[in-house]
């Protein structure tokens, strides 16, 4: 690689210049990028655009020019039905047009990223932790502020679920219901009968007894299962409120000032944890593998007869376990939560982003129209509180068998028909609906770090309690009372740390 000295010098001179040029170019690009980034992430300045339509008094005919576009963010489920519903709405409403965006499997991540980048969808689904977080950041608006008639829909809901739709920070209704599913005790009737019992357990001690009998008969190795992933917090609350009836305003884990109150012997949480570990280590009716039971896991476990009892959703899990070709089809029945009979529920709502309502009155009206269509009563996709039907909610139930918060939807004879066909015993289900407790979401009202601490209802990951609990559960020896206490104190510490970090 040797060339003449002078030539190489010339080369290096030329190339040094080129190198400097390249270097300068890179620096310029990086600097421009940095400046651009900084500029673009500044919050929008200036007052929100006030509507000009109202003040200029243009005749209504001109509004037919450009329909208000509303972006509806969804997660990847039932997408065809959503698109279909959107189409029906668009056909019947020329002034508002819905565009559906599928935010994908990692919904929360995608949604938060869009909010962070100040480009959120106008109306979207929210799980409770998402709703609360967005309320806390004031990134979503309470729909009642722009449509006071939203409040009337609370009367249509079952009593236990009304509080859930109210923003705890403002007291206003924040959104209408998309889906609401109670947790029930699913049980395998034939297993139960084989073990010599003729009724599902009425208390958690009875549950332990029946499971032990089933195990001894060799019917199922680990009869008790539960929805682990996002059903984890619900499972604990169900055990707690089963043992201690939830009176209004009752607190199980935290007091009004967000202080932990569970880290002691004899608290409901302590008893629940102890009950659980006794099943794992003493009776051996719960396997550490219970942590693998996500929704398909628990459904297929029930459907194939590997578990006999499970705290899970009525529509997704129990009904799916009864699908015609499942081995245990027809055997999986529902019972109310043992003990007090009260159960918690999981729910998802529609929420409206602040960015949307900031666009002005036209956007506000439009988005309420969309919300009333998706979560309220309409006729021909137009608002009709007095005579309309819960169109979308009913379609969801008719088509997919998923439950709702509204009495009109759940108790409609055609709905009951659908659910019976899915082998959900609706009498028990409707009874459970009467005994729903919002304590899961109000104890305390969710803080931004609630999901991170417990285990998020909207995602698989996150959660400090779940891994620490699992560490005890998969250990070799049964945790002693002091072990349990240490665990409770540890997670109470985590809570307090998060609380401090958040400046609460």
């Amino acid at each position: 690689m040797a060339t003449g000295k002078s030539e190489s010098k010339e080369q290096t001179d030329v190339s040094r210049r080129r190198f400097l040029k390249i270097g300068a170019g890179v620096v310029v690009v990086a600097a421009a990028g940095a400046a651009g980034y900084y500029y673009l992430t500044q919050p929008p300045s200036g007052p929100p655009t006030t509507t000009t339509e109202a003040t200029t008094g243009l005749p209504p005919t001109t509004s037919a020019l450009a329909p208000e576009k509303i972006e509806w963010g969804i997660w990847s489920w039932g997408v065809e039905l959503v698109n279909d519903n959107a189409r029906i709405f668009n056909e019947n409403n020329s002034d508002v047009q819905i565009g559906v965006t599928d935010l994908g499997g990692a919904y929360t991540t995608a949604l938060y990223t869009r909010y962070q980048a100040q480009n959120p969808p106008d109306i979207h689904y929210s799980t409770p932790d998402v709703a609360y977080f967005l309320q806390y950041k004031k990134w979503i608006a309470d729909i009642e502020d722009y449509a006071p008639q939203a409040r009337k829909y609370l009367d249509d809901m079952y009593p236990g679920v009304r509080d859930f739709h109210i923003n705890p920070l403002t007291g206003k209704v924040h959104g209408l219901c998309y889906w609401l599913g109670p947790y029930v005790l699913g049980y395998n009737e034939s297993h139960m009968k084989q073990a010599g019992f003729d009724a599902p357990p009425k208390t958690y001690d009875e549950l332990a007894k029946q499971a032990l009998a089933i195990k001894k008969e060799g019917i199922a190795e680990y009869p008790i299962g539960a929805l682990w992933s996002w059903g984890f917090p619900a499972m604990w609350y169900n055990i707690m409120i089963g043992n201690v009836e939830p009176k209004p305003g009752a607190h199980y884990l935290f007091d009004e000032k967000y202080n932990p109150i569970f880290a002691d012997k004899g608290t409901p949480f302590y008893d629940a944890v102890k009950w659980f570990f006794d099943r794992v280590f003493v009776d051996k009716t719960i396997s550490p593998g219970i942590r693998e039971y996500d929704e398909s896991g628990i459904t297929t476990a029930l459907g194939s007869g590997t578990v006999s009892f499970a705290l899970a959703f009525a529509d997704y899990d129990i009904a799916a376990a009864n699908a015609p070709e499942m081995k245990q089809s027809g055997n999986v029945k529902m019972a109310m939560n043992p003990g007090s009979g009260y159960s918690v529920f999981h729910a998802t709502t529609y929420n409206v982003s602040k960015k949307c309502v900031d666009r002005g009155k036209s956007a506000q009206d439009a988005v309420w129209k969309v919300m009333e269509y998706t979560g309220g009563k309409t006729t021909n996709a137009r608002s009709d509180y007095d005579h309309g039907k819960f169109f979308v909610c009913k379609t969801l139930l008719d088509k997919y068998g998923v439950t709702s918060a509204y009495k009109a939807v759940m108790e409609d004879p055609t709905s009951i028909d659908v659910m019976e066909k899915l082998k959900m015993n609706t009498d028990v289900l409707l009874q459970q609906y009467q005994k729903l407790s919002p304590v899961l979401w109000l104890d305390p009202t969710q803080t931004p770090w609630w999901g991170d601490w417990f285990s998020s209802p909207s995602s698989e990951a996150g959660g400090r309690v779940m891994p620490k609990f699992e560490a005890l559960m998969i250990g070799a020896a049964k945790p002693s009372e002091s072990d349990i206490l240490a665990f409770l104190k540890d997670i109470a510490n985590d809570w307090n740390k998060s609380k401090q970090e958040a400046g609460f």
Partner: protein
Amino acid sequence: MCLVPALAPLFLFGFYPLAYAFYLSLTFYNLKTEIPPHFIGFGNYQALASDSVFAISTTSTLLFAALTIPLITLLSLGEALLLSNDFRGVKVLQVLALIPWGIPVVVSGSIYRFIFDFNFGLFNDIMLKLGLIHEYQSWLSMQWPAMLVVALAYLWVQTPLPTLLLLAGIQSIPKELHEAARIDGAKPLAHFRIVTFNWLKPILFIVLVYASLMALWCFDPVYVITVGGPANFTKLITYFTYEKMFYFLNFGQAGATTILILAITVLLIYLYFRALSLGRLRLRV
């Protein structure tokens, strides 16, 4: 000018975000609070140091690296030696050995997750039939088995490349060296040590470095199989960072973790190169 097309994407998209990561690591930036982002120097690093999950995560990553680096090296060496022989079907075997490389790690992770499934998995069934266990076990709920499954999915996809490198290396050993060793009457083990192994040293070095980096950055199998695993045991540091950023929305600490990963990466590479006498190595430009 030649270099612009090659390097522009790197600088734009590689280094600028890295600078941003530096910035983040020194900032308190937690979306889940009302406190606005502000400079806190090493506060994030302190918070990480006192975070028990971070400690578990680093331990897990170290364990994972300690597990996979030797395994990849030995497995690929073994495979390469095997494939360098001439026997019937070796060409087919070579193709087979390379196939896993083209499979996205998420697919590999999925299939291993299904194989080790609690109730419906192949592994449980075989173990039961062989009499090694008396009832189905939930492997993914036990710490070390879960880690091994993640490592397995990862190894399955990562071994072919080092195997390829080593195989080419073996095939490029000049015949004379083998001849010389044979003439000198070297026994197979010594033959291997003196001829093959020495010749392969540079490549083995590359394999080591590659395996170390890949182990440090392993993310996909965790996402797909264990999501952090029983009691955070398989929460490798990359997954920890991902979680910090996208679930806990604590960008400051996520940035700090990344800078730490970067620091360890750089340190590792420096150590590797130091440990090697540069004379023997043909890697310098």
